[in-house]
């Protein structure tokens, strides 16, 4: 919110405080100044100059002038403006001055320039006479500010003095951040109250006085049909209105916060909104039909054209202000075109009302229309301001002499009191929140400064809370008021002197997860983190069939865009996209893993919490890697959890039909791995083959396996190599399973050769294994290993029709 220093000064006497000090004070009591704007920062060394001589330069539009700049001297300056004249007083930028450079139109500012000595048409010129635009002044700041010739000062202006105070460039604007609990500070007087409190100064409230005459509109009524969202509506009729320009001081203030002056009546509504935080509206009485105002919810498909000539279609969620016949405003957002103030307006109905903040917010969002008024309502308006703003507006009507105040004042009130409310708190409790003992006299001073009227009675602090402080509820709120004014630098560090000791740290599950991540790093993989939501199109990329369970994903009702619109049911799409992005950046080889949740709904749409299944996903790519590289990483996962996986060939729509396996933990399928199918790789523009693996971590987490030690055998182990002949469709895993179950002394089985071709039948292949037998408590007998081998071969023959290769 924009706070001009010059405006603030009307309510607090702060001539002894620099803008920087004020910024720090505001910051310390909870109002961060996001930007401190020095209005005159670009303009320097521009003083009032009197043109003492002014001769035209032949054949040009230029004049050569002698300019008396008082104590700075007299300078010869060439000037092309059409209003330069002998005896005139103008801003003169001395050599070395900075002013705005304008484009050829003399209006558009193109930057800041430094004035140098120069020659125009061979004539020396020491300085420049300036227009309003060139020193950053417009019509609302100083009369003649918009004129594209020179800005002219009155005859009695002293020469040689700095122009900044004259044109109001010695001002500062504070852009103040207001927290959501302080809507009362969304206005100049609200911040003035805070500034007065923090600086121990008096707050001078603006005048609310006015005199009503005897004119009335007796038939006029206000009916509020939606009291739940319009707790207060005040209307006041003003007659004998004369629409004119507002006085310069008002135009200037509106201008400082970026509002255009329009006409006295409209400017008063805007001025009061800025000053008191209460949006106001003025209707042209002549266009209010039926002598009444009705506040109601809009009908479905009801249409209204607003002041800015836009038509909106409304519905039952929107609140409208109507007369006896038609709607005349979208409540709290914008007035209707049909009843706007015109140059011909002679009678006005002022509106000051309180509307529910979420109602206005929803309407404003739904219509895509945000106005200064709707912004204020969204943050919250209190009724104290609703009442006082009307008084202030009527005071200004009187002060500006732009109308007469009738006695017709209608106030529909179902809301809160505007009187202060009593609150009693314990000083001890306040101090207990803070952890320090704030001297009672400081608490009293702070409460007084905030206009809380404190009365102390022992530990009891009785306060009268002004109605605009709706945020004040209990002693913690008082504690906050005390400490923000007393100063947070009084808070000293302590470390729970009264608290009980607790044991901290990761639980076993969290430790296992971290160990898993570290183990995957140790085999060269980088951890990555992806969004929990993906694109529904990702399921198409994976060629998943229509009835695939992965497609049963939870949808976000209001996603940022379609690409981030469903909760992931698999981590594979995010991983494949990451691989694709890396390959596009010429990272042609790599290993990534992610540990994250997939979201499995128990029902759709959601009626209960879905399952969030912790899942491991590994992706690798590059010429150096193959299926077995990824498999070794999957085995690493098994190792982490002190278990073993089995791999069974499987089919997945996005994996290579002959390089894919289901990962089995016992009889339970807990994941898969494989080479990314070429069709999928093509859609992702992959240049290098990629491999992907996904494992459900829940089952692994629930295993009760743990690190353990097997004593080394005291006796010699034995090795045997077996070359076996079998049908081509038998897998290594099947053979290994049979070997393994044939003898309990087998520690390790390693495949060392695969052969097909000459010397063996066409439909057969040969696999050669090296088997390691390790004795247990006793040494192997002389022929023991031979017996083991015999049993293995017998089982292989029986189960798989495998023969020893001779």
């Amino acid at each position: 919110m924009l706070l001009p220093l010059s405006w603030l000064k009307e309510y607090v006497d702060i001539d002894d405080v620099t803008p920087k000090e004020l910024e720090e004070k505001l910051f310390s009591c909870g109002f961060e100044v996001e930007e401190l704007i020095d209005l005159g920062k670009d303009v320097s060394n521009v003083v009032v100059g009197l043109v003492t001589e002014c001769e035209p330069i032949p054949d040009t539009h230029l004049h050569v002038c002698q300019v008396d700049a008082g104590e700075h001297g007299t300078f010869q300056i060439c000037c092309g403006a059409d209003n330069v004249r002998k005896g005139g007083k103008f801003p003169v930028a001395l050599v070395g001055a900075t002013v705005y450079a304008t484009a050829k139109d003399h209006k558009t500012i193109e930057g800041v320039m430094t004035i140098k000595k120069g020659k125009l048409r061979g004539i020396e010129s020491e300085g420049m006479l300036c227009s309003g635009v060139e020193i950053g002044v417009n019509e609302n700041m100083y009369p003649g500010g918009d004129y594209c010739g020179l800005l002219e000062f009155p005859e009695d202006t002293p020469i040689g003095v700095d122009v900044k105070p004259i044109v109001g460039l010695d001002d500062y604007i504070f852009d103040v951040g207001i927290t959501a609990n302080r809507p009362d500070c969304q206005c100049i007087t609200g911040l003035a109250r805070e500034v007065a409190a923090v600086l121990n100064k008096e707050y001078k409230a603006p005048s609310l006085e006015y005199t009503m005459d005897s004119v009335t509109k007796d038939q006029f009524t206000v009916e509020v049909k939606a009291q739940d969202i319009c707790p207060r509506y005040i209307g006041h009729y003003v007659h004998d209105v004369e629409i004119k320009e507002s006085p310069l001081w008002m135009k200037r203030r509106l201008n400082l916060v970026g509002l255009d002056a329009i006409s006295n009546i409209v400017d008063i509504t805007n001025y009061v909104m800025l000053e008191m935080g209460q949006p106001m509206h003025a209707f042209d009485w002549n266009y209010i039909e039926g002598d009444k105002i009705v506040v109601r919810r809009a009908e479905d498909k009801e249409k209204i054209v607003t002041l800015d000539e836009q038509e909106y279609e409304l519905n039952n969620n929107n609140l409208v202000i109507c007369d006896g016949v038609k709607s005349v405003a979208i409540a709290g957002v914008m007035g209707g075109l049909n009843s706007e103030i015109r140059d011909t307006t002679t009678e006005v109905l002022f509106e000051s009302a309180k509307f529910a903040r979420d109602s206005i917010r929803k309407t404003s969002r739904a219509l895509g229309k945000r106005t200064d008024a709707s912004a204020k309502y969204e943050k919250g308006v209190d009724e104290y301001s609703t009442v006082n703003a009307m008084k202030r507006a009527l005071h200004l009507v009187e002060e500006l002499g732009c109308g007469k105040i009738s006695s017709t004042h209608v106030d529909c009130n179902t809301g809160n009191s505007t009187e202060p409310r009593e609150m009693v708190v314990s000083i001890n409790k306040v101090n207990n929140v803070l952890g320090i003992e704030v001297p009672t006299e400081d608490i009293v001073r702070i409460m007084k400064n905030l206009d809380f009227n404190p009365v102390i009675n022992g530990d009891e602090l009785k306060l009268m809370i002004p109605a605009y402080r709706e945020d004040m509820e209990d002693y913690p709120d008082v504690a906050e008021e005390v400490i923000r004014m007393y100063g947070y630098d009084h808070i000293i560090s302590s470390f729970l002197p009264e608290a009980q000791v607790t044991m901290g740290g990761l639980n076993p599950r969290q430790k296992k997860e971290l160990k898993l991540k570290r183990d995957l790093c140790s085999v060269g993989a980088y951890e990555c983190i992806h969004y929990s939501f993906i694109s529904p199109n990702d399921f198409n990329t994976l060629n998943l069939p229509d009835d695939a369970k992965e497609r049963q994903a939870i949808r976000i009702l209001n996603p940022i865009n379609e690409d981030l619109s469903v909760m992931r049911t698999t981590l594979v799409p995010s991983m494949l996209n990451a691989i694709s992005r890396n390959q596009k950046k010429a990272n042609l080889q790599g290993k990534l893993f992610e540990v994250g949740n997939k979201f499995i709904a128990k029902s759709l749409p959601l009626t209960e919490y879905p399952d969030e299944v912790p899942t491991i996903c590994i992706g690798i790519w590059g010429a150096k890697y193959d299926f077995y590289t990824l498999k070794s990483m999957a085995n690493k996962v098994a190792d982490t959890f002190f278990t073993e996986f089995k791999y069974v060939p499987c089919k997945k729509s996005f994996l290579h039909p002959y390089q894919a396996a289901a990962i089995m933990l016992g009889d339970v399928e807990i994941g898969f791995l494989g080479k990314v199918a070429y069709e999928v790789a093509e859609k992702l523009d992959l240049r290098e083959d990629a491999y992907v693996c996904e494992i459900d971590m829940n089952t692994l987490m629930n295993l009760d396996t743990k690190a353990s030690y097997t004593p080394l055998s005291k006796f010699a182990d034995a090795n045997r190599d077996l070359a076996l002949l079998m049908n081509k469709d038998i897998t290594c895993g099947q053979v290994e399973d049979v070997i393994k179950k044939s003898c309990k002394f087998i520690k390790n089985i390693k495949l060392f050769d695969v052969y097909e071709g000459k010397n063996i039948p066409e439909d057969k292949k040969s696999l050669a294994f090296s088997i390691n037998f390790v004795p247990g408590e006793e040494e192997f007998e002389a022929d023991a290993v031979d017996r083991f081998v015999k049993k293995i071969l017998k089982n292989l023959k029986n189960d798989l029709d495998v023969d020893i290769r001779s």
Partner: protein
Amino acid sequence: MIERLNSIKQEILDGIENHANSRATAFELRKQFLDSKTGKIGQLMKEMKNIAPEERANFGKSVNELKDWASSVFADLDEKMKAKELELKYKAEKIDVTIDADSEETGNLHPITQMRNQLIDVFAGMGFEIFEGTEIENDYYNFTALNTPADHPARDMQDTFYLSPEFLLRTQTSAGQIHVMEKEKPPIKILSPGKVFRSDDDATHSPMFTQMEGLVVDKKITLCDLKGMLDMFVQKIYGEETTTRLRPSYFPFTEPSVEVDVSCFECGGKGCKLCKGTGWIEILGAGIVNKKVLENCGIDSEEYSGLAFGIGIERVAMLKYGINNIKHLFESDINVLNQINDN
């Protein structure tokens, strides 16, 4: 006879001078003279019988002297040859040590995980347990229980991703703390790290980011305790010299609420580009738990009070490592991920 001895001696010296250029040739040479059976010095002993008996003793002594001398000469020679050969071997193995090494690649934890682990280490040491809530929450736990009234701007569809009228993606990890406070009785000291979601997507915002929320509920918890705890945290993460500054702020679930700034760890508070000249960097929000929140969880707010703080892990990590764009954290570019190894 003496001449013979002298000539052998000379022969040895000449042999060394002219032929011994390696350990092997030196050994061969030694064998010619000192081999117990065929060596020339050994052979001399066999000639003892041809020596006049009175000279035998003298002769034997001289031969032994020669033998000793030769042994020592050959031993020295062997040492020398050994040294020479080693030197050659070393020379032959000369490499260019400036050639870059091929390293066995190990991966890294994600920078967010690394930062998360560091924060957990600090707070675990202070007695915090780690509790991870769910990413999908319902409206009550994410908002209502946290004293965020129905018409609060934070509940607007603009900020929150809704999955149904009731379920949403949590916007803050505080949601999980309500579950803990409902189940456990004080003393409670929990740290809740996790993914949170807000409908923001621009240069500085990501629709998903990571928060770490801390909560302490016990008797007589004060703002001073909050400052003490946060001072300790920033000193562990950013260095012993770091201090904190509290300033008023607003969150629905804490009262009083504060923003916490740390003294700039880049410039030490003098003012620099990182702290935008202020000497301070905003890192987290905190406060005394709003008594309504305790009451919503069935905790007696007359007996117990609490403190809470929420840290944006991305922000802390980006500040610590100088990562300039939050989006880099979620793009999985190996060239980003391989830069940070701080755990």
